């Protein structure tokens, strides 16, 4: 039976979609049958990051409304045959995503998959609540920046009160994923440290993804960054996935690169 995992944050633009694509792809690379669902109604983007935007025929809401079945709407990844994407609707209004509809689709997917990853829209209102309602686990994506940390705490509050698990007196398992971490700025004292964010949010750490140019390059090409084995961000995502799967993995890329003389003088 599948595990439902929501990737959420409260704040927009912190790396939810990037992380959903990376983690979903990584789980598939590890052999798990995985489906990525884009919950960002009206702002479909997961398809672009996954590089399948031209293969979208039907979407999530078509399936909920019975205009297509799941088989027709699921896009099979070209690189990993155990990886699928269910795109968000581009046109409909947000209310088209009903709780019963979402439940129906998730129940059907559960029969067939190991992991269902839900890429949440920003905010803490209806759209974000819909994405997290049925979650077993939550990956809270946070940037080391004051507003992002506060919004992460707000979404933690929602997870702890408005999820199905919370309503049943249980709890959604929470993971902290710190992204866009810049060790140089941390060392200069301008950026919150991993320890600061961990202490403030009091959620177990899953991974720290460094700020990296390869993320933009990967999204330009529609290749999830986790497939870029030479990039620090790609390696950090794979570390996080292995921790998610219960392995013990050392943290890397937390310290600033020591710059040599030439790099210091001429930049690098």
């Amino acid at each position, binding site marked *: 039976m599948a595990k439902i995992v929501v990737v959420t944050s409260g704040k927009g633009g912190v790396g939810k979609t990037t992380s959903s694509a990376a983690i979903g792809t990584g789980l598939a690379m590890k052999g798990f049958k995985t489906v990525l669902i884009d919950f960002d109604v009206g702002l479909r983007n997961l398809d672009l990051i996954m590089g399948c935007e031209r293969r979208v025929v039907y979407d999530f809401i078509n399936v909920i409304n019975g205009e297509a079945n799941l088989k027709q709407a699921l896009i099979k990844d070209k690189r990993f045959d155990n990886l699928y994407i269910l795109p968000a609707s581009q046109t409909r209004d947000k209310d088209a995503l009903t709780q019963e509809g979402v439940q129906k689709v998730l129940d059907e997917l559960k029969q067939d998959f190991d992991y269902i990853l839900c890429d949440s829209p920003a905010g803490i209102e209806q759209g974000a609540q819909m994405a997290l309602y049925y979650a077993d686990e939550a990956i809270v994506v946070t940037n080391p920046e*004051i507003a992002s*940390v506060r919004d992460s*705490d707000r979404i933690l509050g929602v997870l702890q009160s408005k999820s199905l698990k919370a309503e049943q007196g249980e709890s959604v398992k929470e993971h902290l994923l710190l992204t866009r971490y810049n060790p140089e700025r941390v060392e200069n*004292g*301008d*950026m*919150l440290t991993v320890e*600061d964010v961990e202490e*403030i949010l009091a959620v177990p750490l899953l991974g720290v993804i460094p700020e990296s140019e390869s993320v933009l390059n990967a999204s330009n090409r529609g290749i999830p960054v986790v497939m870029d084995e030479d990039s620090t961000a790609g390696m950090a995502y794979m570390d996080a996935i292995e921790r998610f799967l219960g392995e013990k993995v050392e943290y890397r890329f937390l310290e600033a690169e020591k710059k040599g003389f030439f790099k210091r003088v001429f930049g690098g």
Partner: protein
Amino acid sequence: MGIIDYFRNEKPGSASVARDRLKLIVAHERKSRNQPDYLPQMQRELVEVIRKYVSVDVDQVQVDLQDGDVSVLELTVTLPE
């Protein structure tokens, strides 16, 4: 601050300021999440009443509801010097 101090640039980075502000606001918001809905309005009205007698700012009036064996409503007012 003298000109020497100004250039010495010994002030700690802004991250520590962010950390301290976050600790306070997150603790405050976590507490208020578990409070009944009437509390913010009650706090505003209490501030109004107190202001009739002494001039205080909103952040000098704290209303907390503590749940335990018995619920205690705690009102803390920091009076101006």
